[in-house]
């Protein structure tokens, strides 16, 4: 099989996101990740389907030279589910925003996670409605001043990570729009994961919510305010690689290695494959300034997938049933003959 490059995944359509929009980074990461995914999993290009709902990020399928479906607001997850269940051979990727997936499409989102449909959901979280020009979203921080909350919102935001883990999600990862390499790496892990993979990308909307993630994403202090989790590795972070996460009673604590007798041995080792969701939940919930924000694959566990379950059940029933064609069906049960 020929080795694809990112060029084969680029469509001829002009990319129409604003200059400086975080979405450009996600698109680039996906176009770079798919050749690796294709090689790792032995796919061919025509097996990819990229699905989206409505919103700025949902324009993404037009920029991918794959099969694509730009659907309606909030429904991308339901459409992806239908595609994957109808043909489990397809590799389904989904682009959706925080409003699309968590407000109008919240129901489909949690149910796809619950069913563990083998789709890869890229959740662009810029904490704002961009395409409608600046209204608060279900991930906007409490008190956010937007066009529809001129005096500040009075509602609590969703943390997509806890939502996914609460719905018994099997895969959750987080990344930043500017971390191209990390994002591509996460996309490869998501592709390899059998089941519903949710990748939250903290994206910046330069027009309506510029700097929403600035406090953690700025190059100047990113290393101190985020932690990249990798399975099997110690949870160490910081510009000087001297900070770490350890268990403290029922919770987590940030410590400095070399202070108060703390050594590297005290630092937690990340186990993304642990069935126990407790620590994953705590990691997904970590917020600046008390904690670094967790990036990387936070949870990646095996479970049966919905699409396989549906397919296998059809095969099982088919193998056992006396009804093998419609003529059999029509003649099954109570019938009588008129002579």
């Amino acid at each position, binding site marked *: 099989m020929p080795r694809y490059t990112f060029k084969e995944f680029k469509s001829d359509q002009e990319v129409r996101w604003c200059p400086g929009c975080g979405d450009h980074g996600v698109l680039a990461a996906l176009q770079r990740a798919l050749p690796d995914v294709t090689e790792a999993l032995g796919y061919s290009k025509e097996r990819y389907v990229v699905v989206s709902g409505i919103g700025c990020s949902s324009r993404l399928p037009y920029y991918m030279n794959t099969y694509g479906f730009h659907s309606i607001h909030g429904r991308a997850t339901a459409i992806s589910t239908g595609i994957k269940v109808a043909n489990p051979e397809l590799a389904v990727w989904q682009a959706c925003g925080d409003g699309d997936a968590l407000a109008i499409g919240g129901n489909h989102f949690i149910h796809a996670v619950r069913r563990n449909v083998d789709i890869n959901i890229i959740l662009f979280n810029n904490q704002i409605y961009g395409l409608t020009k600046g209204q608060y979203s279900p991930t906007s921080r409490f008190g956010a001043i937007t066009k529809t909350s001129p005096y500040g919102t009075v509602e609590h935001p969703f943390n997509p990570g806890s939502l996914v883990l609460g719905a018994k999600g099997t895969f959750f990862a987080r990344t930043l729009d500017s971390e191209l390499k990390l994002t591509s790496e996460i996309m490869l892990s998501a592709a390899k994961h059998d089941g519903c993979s949710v990748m939250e990308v903290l994206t910046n909307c330069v027009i309506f919510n510029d700097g929403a993630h600035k406090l953690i994403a700025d190059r100047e202090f990113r290393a101190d305010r985020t932690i990249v989790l990798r399975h099997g590795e110690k949870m160490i972070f910081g510009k000087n690689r001297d900070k770490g996460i350890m268990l403290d009673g029922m919770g987590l604590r940030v410590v400095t290695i070399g202070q108060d007798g703390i050594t590297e041995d005290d630092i937690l080792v990340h186990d993304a494959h642990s069935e126990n969701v407790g620590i994953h939940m705590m990691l997904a919930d970590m917020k600046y300034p008390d904690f670094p924000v967790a990036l990387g694959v936070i949870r990646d566990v095996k479970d049966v997938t919905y699409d396989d379950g549906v397919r296998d059940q059809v095969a099982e029933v088919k193998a056992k049933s006396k009804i093998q064609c419609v003529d059999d069906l029509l003649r099954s049960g109570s019938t*009588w003959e008129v002579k």
Partner: protein
Amino acid sequence: MQHKVIDAKDVVIRFAGDSGDGMQLTGSLFADMSAIFGNELSTFPDYPAEIRAPHGTVSGVSGFQVHIGSDHITTPGDFCDMLVAMNPAALKANAKWLKRTAMVLIDSDTFDEDGLKRAGLHNDPITELHIEDRTIIIAPITSLTEESLKDSGLDRKTVNKCKNMFTLGMACFIYNRPMEYIFQYLERKFGKKKPELIEPNKKVLKDGFNYAANIQAIPNTYNIEPAHQPKGLYRNITGNQATAWGLLAASEKSGLPLFCGSYPITPATGILEELAIHKSLGAKTLQAEDEIAGICTAIGAAFAGSLAVTTTSGPGLSLKSEALGLAVMTELPLVIVDVQRAGPSTGIPTKTEQTDLNQALYGRNGECPMVVMAAKSPAGCFDSAFNAAKIALEHMTPVILLTEGFLGNGSEAWRIPSMKDYPKIVPPFAHPNKEYKPFERDPETLVRKWAVPGMAGCEHRVGGLEKNHEGVLSSDPVNHALMVQEREMKVRKVADYIPELEVHGAESGKLLVVGWGGTYGHLLSAVQDAHELGMEVGFAHFDYIKPLPRNTEEIFSHYDKILVCELNSGHFVNYLRAEMPQFNYAQYNKVQGQPFLVQEIVSAIKQNL
């Protein structure tokens, strides 16, 4: 004593009781047994929305009407020859449906002070309900059942559940039905799970039969000879079952796997349940998280190359509206089955109506045309569902198939067809590795080609945004106007592929009776009755609403007046007025959550002549 045995051409029997009395089962067993006996039949289940409505009240009465005959039967019958009333409420609710000559069988054990009070009746219900002139058979069914099973060791609750078998036994005697079928049913039903219930139920059934034979109160019994039906293998089938099977047939004939994404809703749920059983035919069913997910998963499955279906009823169709627009815009094949019920909003969920036609035709944003069809009888749902799928797949369009609660739950005997007599379904698939323009159209049909993921070299994007023939986003005004027109014309051109309209009765003259959907049987009977009364009228029934059959205008032009009868306030007649304003239309409408009565239509015909 000797009962007089009367040969009857047809009889209508209505079983009515509390919603927990098992009347639906009793009625359907009686129907199945009659079907196997060789009678023609039509059934009408009429039950409340509550699973167990307040005990003994009129609102909690569940009825099942069955019309059997030795000749062609097209309706469940307006009025009944026999009413089985398991309690006072059942009698009160159904007294108005008694023929003058009717027989009424009541369970006298339930006609105590409490039972009468719950039904809002007083000491003498027979007089109060003005049915003194009917033959009333008073039988203590509850206590006779208890007596019959006193040595069975069954608890009181279980014994009480057997009283419908006692009633059925009596009905078997009165209508000379062989009970063998019921025995077999009981063995099938309880065989593995509760074998201890087989013998008691059989005993009660036989005791009911013998009781009816021994009492003097029953003046006559009836013979209904088997009908002279065409040779062949027959079965009884409900509309929902036939719909599901028709879709499976289309899946087989197209070679495409069936995918059904649906959310449970009365009275459409039976289709999803039926499809869920038949995984051996490759059907994938997805019980979605809501109605919108039902249609959206189906649209996804259509994009992926399945025969995609979503099933619902009125309120669910409302929820699916936006996604219907997406299916129109992406020009994907999709079948939407709407088993109509009484609305608006939740309305009366278990009652039948034709009030979703406007919604099916117009209920979407933008210029959003799709094919709209209707099924005309329970068994007819098979062909309608097959044809809906065929049109959707071959014309790359969503198709709404309207059925009705009356059809979905109603049943009739059906001569089993052979799949070799059904046409192949050939979707317009694109060719891999050839240049593919997603919205390039066949010049004749205006149908686009279908490229499905997995097909190499045909990668493309579809979506809700307007596009040009190449599939590139376009907000160009001229392109938009062209695409709007082409989508409409594509649907209209389906008229070249559907059967022409047929006329029963007079081929020209003063009046053409017109209907659509599940009113077919009633309208046909009415026109036949009118003919017997010397009124010469024609009758044309529409299975296809958008587009209309090609010869519609020609047929209408032969009559002075077109009388459109429908179970809504005039959706179809107004559609016809808009499509063909040159004709003189009259309308007869009923919006009561109930089917037409044949006699109502006959009167309407009379008034319009």
